[in-house]
C-alpha cells in the first residue's frame, strides 16, 4: 500500500479506531494482521517471501539462544544470512550481476551470457531483510534476547508504518513497546496527525511537483546543459529525495504514534551538516547506524586484528583501518540502494568524502569552532548535493558527462533549463534553511504566548492541509520504494 493514497488513510483510520478498542494481545494480533493486509494490497503473492524472511530469523534466533556451541551458532547465523541475502540477491541483483558478467566476458572476448528472469522487486525487501538480519546478529552477539512470542516478533518485523521504507528498527527499540499496554493520549493523536500531515505535504505538494522538473532536466541532452544547470539539478534532486524520503519517515513515525508506538527519527536536517560524517549522522539515520554496527565496525575490527604495526610506510594504521572500513561500508551502502553502478559510485563518492575529511581533521582542528561549522557547511552542502547526480542518473556515462560540466568554467555562461527551475531551486533551498531557523530560534519564543502560538499553528495547518488536500493523488511513487 502506498502512503499518499486515500486507501492508506482509510486503512489507517480503521486500524487506529479498532486498536484502541482491543486488549493488549488483541492489539498485537491486529498489528500483525493489518501489516499483512497492508503488504497484500500491493501484491498478495509476495507475502510468502516476507514471511519466509520473518520466520527464518524467528527460528534462527531461538535456536541460537538455545545452543551453547559456538560453531552451531555461527552455522545458524549463516542460515539467516544465506536466506535473507539470498532473497535480496535473487530479486534485486541477479540481473545486474548477469549483465555485468556478460559485459566482462565481452571485454575479454568471451561469450558469458547468463539468462536470468527479470522479476518484480518485492516492496521493502531491502528494509525488512536488513531488519531481520540485525535481529539475528544481535541475538548471536548476545546484545538482544530472542523473542519467543511469534506475534510480538512478527509485529517488530512487519509493523506496517515502517515495513516498506524504514526506519530500519532494532528489536530493542520496539518489541518492549508492543508488550506494554499504552493508554490513549490526545498528545500522541495530535503529534501523530501532525507528522502524517507534514509527511503528506512534503510528498504530494513538494516532492511530487519537483519531480517533473528533475525528470525533464535529466532527460535533456548533456550538451545542452551548463555547469550551472548541473548544480541546479543536483540541488533540486537533492531536495526532491530529501522531501520524498523524509515524508515517508514522517508518515511512518506519525502512523506509529497514533498507536502509541514511538519510532526513532530518520532525518535531522541533513543539509545543515557541517562535515560528510555529520551528513550521515543526519541522513537515513537508521541505515547509517545499521551500516556502522554491522559492516563498518566488524570490518574495521577484522582488519585491525590483522595489522600488527602502528604504521605502514608513512601511513598510520588507524588511517588504513578507517579507510578500508569506510570504503567497504559505503560501497555496500551504495549497492544496497540499487543494482546499478551509479549507486555504487555514489556510495564510494561519499566514502571518499569521509576519508578525505578524516585525513584533513588534524588541520581543521586549528580553525575556530564557528569557522569549522560555517566552513564545514559551505563545503559539505555542495559536495553532498553533487553526489546526487550519480544517484539520479540512468548510467555512469550520463553521470560523468554531467559532472564534467561542473569543471568547465566557460560552460557556466549558458543556461539550458527553464527559468522557473532556477527560481524554484533557490526558493526551496532558502525555505529549508528558513524552516530550520524558525523552528530552532523563533518557535520556542512564540510558544510562550499560547494564544498567539495556537493562532499561528492553526494558520500554518490550514495552508498545509489545504495544499495537501488538493494535491493528494498517487502520481509519483516514493523514491525509496524502489529499494
Amino acid at each position, binding site marked *: 500500500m502506498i502512503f499518499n493514497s486515500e486507501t492508506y488513510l482509510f486503512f489507517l483510520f480503521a486500524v487506529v479506531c479498532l486498536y484502541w478498542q482491543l486488549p493488549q494481545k488483541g492489539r498485537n494480533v491486529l498489528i500483525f494482521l493489518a501489516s499483512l493486509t497492508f503488504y497484500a494490497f500491493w501484491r498478495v503473492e509476495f507475502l510468502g517471501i516476507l514471511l519466509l524472511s520473518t520466520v527464518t530469523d524467528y527460528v534462527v534466533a531461538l535456536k541460537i539462544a538455545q545452543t551453547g556451541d559456538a560453531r552451531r551458532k555461527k552455522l545458524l547465523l549463516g542460515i539467516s544470512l544465506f536466506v535473507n541475502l539470498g532473497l535480496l540477491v535473487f530479486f534485486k541483483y541477479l540481473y545486474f550481476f548477469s549483465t555485468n558478467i556478460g559485459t566482462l566476458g565481452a571485454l575479454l572476448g568471451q561469450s558469458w551470457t547468463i539468462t536470468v528472469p527479470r522479476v518484480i522487486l518485492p516492496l521493502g525487501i531491502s528494509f525488512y531483510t536488513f531488519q531481520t538480519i540485525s535481529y539475528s546478529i544481535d541475538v548471536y552477539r548476545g546484545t538482544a534476547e530472542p523473542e519467543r512470542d511469534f506475534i510480538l516478533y512478527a509485529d517488530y518485523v512487519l509493523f506496517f508504518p515502517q515495513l516498506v521504507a524504514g526506519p530500519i528498527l532494532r528489536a530493542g527499540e520496539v518489541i518492549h513497546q508492543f508488550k506494554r499496554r499504552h493508554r490513549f493520549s*490526545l498528545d500522541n493523536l495530535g503529534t501523530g496527525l501532525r507528522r502524517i500531515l507534514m509527511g503528506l505535504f512534503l510528498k504530494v505538494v513538494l516532492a511530487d511537483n519537483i519531480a517533473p522538473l528533475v525528470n525533464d532536466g535529466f*532527460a*535533456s541532452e548533456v550538451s545542452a546543459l551548463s555547469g550551472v544547470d548541473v548544480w541546479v539539478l543536483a540541488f533540486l534532486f537533492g531536495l526532491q529525495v530529501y522531501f520524498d524520503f523524509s515524508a515517508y519517515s514522517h508518515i511512518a513515525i506519525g502512523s506509529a504514534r497514533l498507536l502509541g508506538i514511538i519510532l526513532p527519527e530518520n532525518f535531522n536536517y541533513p543539509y545543515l551538516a557541517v562535515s560528510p560524517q555529520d551528513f550521515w549522522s543526519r541522513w537515513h539515520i537508521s541505515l547509517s547506524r545499521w551500516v556502522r554496527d554491522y559492516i563498518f565496525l566488524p570490518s574495521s575490527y577484522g582488519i585491525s586484528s590483522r595489522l600488527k604495526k602502528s604504521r605502514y610506510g608513512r601511513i598510520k594504521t588507524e588511517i588504513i583501518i578507517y579507510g578500508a572500513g569506510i570504503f567497504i561500508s559505503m560501497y555496500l551502502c551504495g549497492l544496497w540502494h540499487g543494482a546499478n553502478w551509479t549507486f555504487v559510485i555514489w556510495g564510494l563518492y561519499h566514502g571518499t568524502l569521509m576519508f578525505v575529511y578524516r585525513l584533513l581533521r588534524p588541520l581543521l582542528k586549528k580553525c575556530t569552532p564557528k569557522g569549522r561549522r560555517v566552513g564545514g557547511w559551505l563545503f559539505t552542502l555542495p559536495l553532498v548535493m553533487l553526489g546526487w547526480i550519480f544517484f539520479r542518473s540512468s548510467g555512469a556515462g550520463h553521470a560523468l558527462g554531467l559532472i564534467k560540466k561542473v569543471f568547465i568554467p566557460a560552460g557556466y555562461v549558458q543556461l539550458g533549463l527553464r527559468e522557473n527551475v532556477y527560481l524554484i531551486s533557490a526558493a526551496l533551498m532558502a525555505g529549508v534553511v528558513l524552516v530550520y531557523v524558525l523552528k530552532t530560534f523563533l518557535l520556542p519564543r512564540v510558544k510562550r504566548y499560547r494564544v498567539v502560538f495556537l493562532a499561528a499553528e492553526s494558520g500554518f495547518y490550514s495552508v498545509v492541509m489545504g495544499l495537501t*488536500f488538493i494535491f493528494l493523488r498517487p502520481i509519483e511513487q516514493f523514491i525509496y520504494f*524502489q529499494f
Partner: protein
Amino acid sequence: MQENKKNRTKKPWVTAILPLLTGALASGLFLFLTQAGEEIKYDELALGQETAPWYSTYNGTAIHASVLDEVEPWIKPAGPARDKGIKHRVLWLGNSQLNGINQYEKGQENMVYHLFHRMRRRKVRVLGFSQPNAHLGEHYVIFEYIRSRVPFDTLVLPVVFDDTRNIKLREDIGTALRDGKTAAALSQSAAGKRILNRELRKKNNRRGDEFAALKNTLQEKSEAFLNGLSEKYVPLWSLREQARGSFFHFLYRFRNTVFNITAQTKRPVIKERYDFNMEAFKAILASAKGKNIGVLVYIAPLRQDVEPPYILAEYEAFKKDIREITEKMHAVYADLDASVPDRLWGSKGATGLMGRGELDFMHFKEPGHVLLAEKLERLLTDMFNRDGNEEEDE
C-alpha cells in the same frame, strides 16, 4: 499560576487537536468559497482574460482540433478530409493565435473557420490544429502524426518567435511518439531522433514505469473505488483539479509580480532551444518536400504599435533564418507580421497579482482573423495556381 497550569493540562485537546481542527475548517471553507462556482479552464488561461478560444465545426465534425483524439474523425469516410471532389487538402498548424479571439463576441469565428469557408468555394479543404504555445518541435510531431492518417497535400505553418523558447512536449503529443508510424518518420531526422531520445531518456530516467508494479493490485482497485465515492459524496473532492490550477496560476502571477514581469518584458533567445526549434522546422520542410506536400510558411502577425517583447536584433535574425531555410527548401515564405492593423489588437488581464490590463501581443479581434484568412487565401490560391502551371509545363 498553578491553577492556570492545571487548566492547561485539563484541556490537552486545545494544544493537541484544536489547531488541526481549525486548520481543516479554515482550509475547507477557503477552498469552497474560492473554487465552487464558475468552472475555470486553466489550459486557456494562457490566452489571457479577454481572449476566448474557439474551435469550429462543419457538418458536426471539428474542422479545427486541439487534441489528437479530435483528428480521428477527419479520416472517417464521411469526415471532412475524405470529401469527394476536393482538389487540395490543407493542414494548418499553429498556436493559440489561430483559435484565440480577443474581445470575443457571440457569433464570432476565428481564422480557421474563415479560411475554411473561403477555400471551400475553391474546393479546397482546410483543417486546423492548434494548441497554446505550441512550438516547432510539437508541430513536427503533430505533422508526422496527422500526415500518416490524413491525406493532405499542403501545410500552412506560422512561425512564432516567442514559441522558440519552448522545447517540452505536452503529454498529449508525447503519446503520439508511441505511434509506430510517427516514431518511424521522426527517426529520419536529427531533430526527430532528439525528440525520441529525450522521451526515451525521460522514460529510462524514471527507472521504468514506477507504477507498473501497482497495476492490477488491490490498491489500484480500492483507490478507484474510494475516489469514485469521494467524487460523489465529498463536494470539495471534485474541485481539487481546479484548485491545483488556481494555485499554480497564483504562483505564476506571484512570480511575475516579484520580478516585475509583464507582457512587455523582453524575452531573450535561449540558444539551445532556439536551435532545436530551427532543426525541427528544417525537418518539417524536408519531410514535406519528400512527400510532395507544399508548404506555406508565414511569420505570425505581431502588433506594431509598441515595441515587441523581444530583442529586436534577435527577432530580425529569426525572420532571416526562417526565410533562408524556407527558400532553400523551396517552400513559400510570407512575412505577415504587420498584416493585422494596430486597432485590431487587444488587451489581456494583468500577468501579475496587481496592476491593470496589459497589451496582448498574440491575439487579435475577429476582424483581424478575417484579414489574415483573406491574405492566406490569396497566398494559397497563388501557390496552387503556380503549381498547376508547373504541372502543365511538365
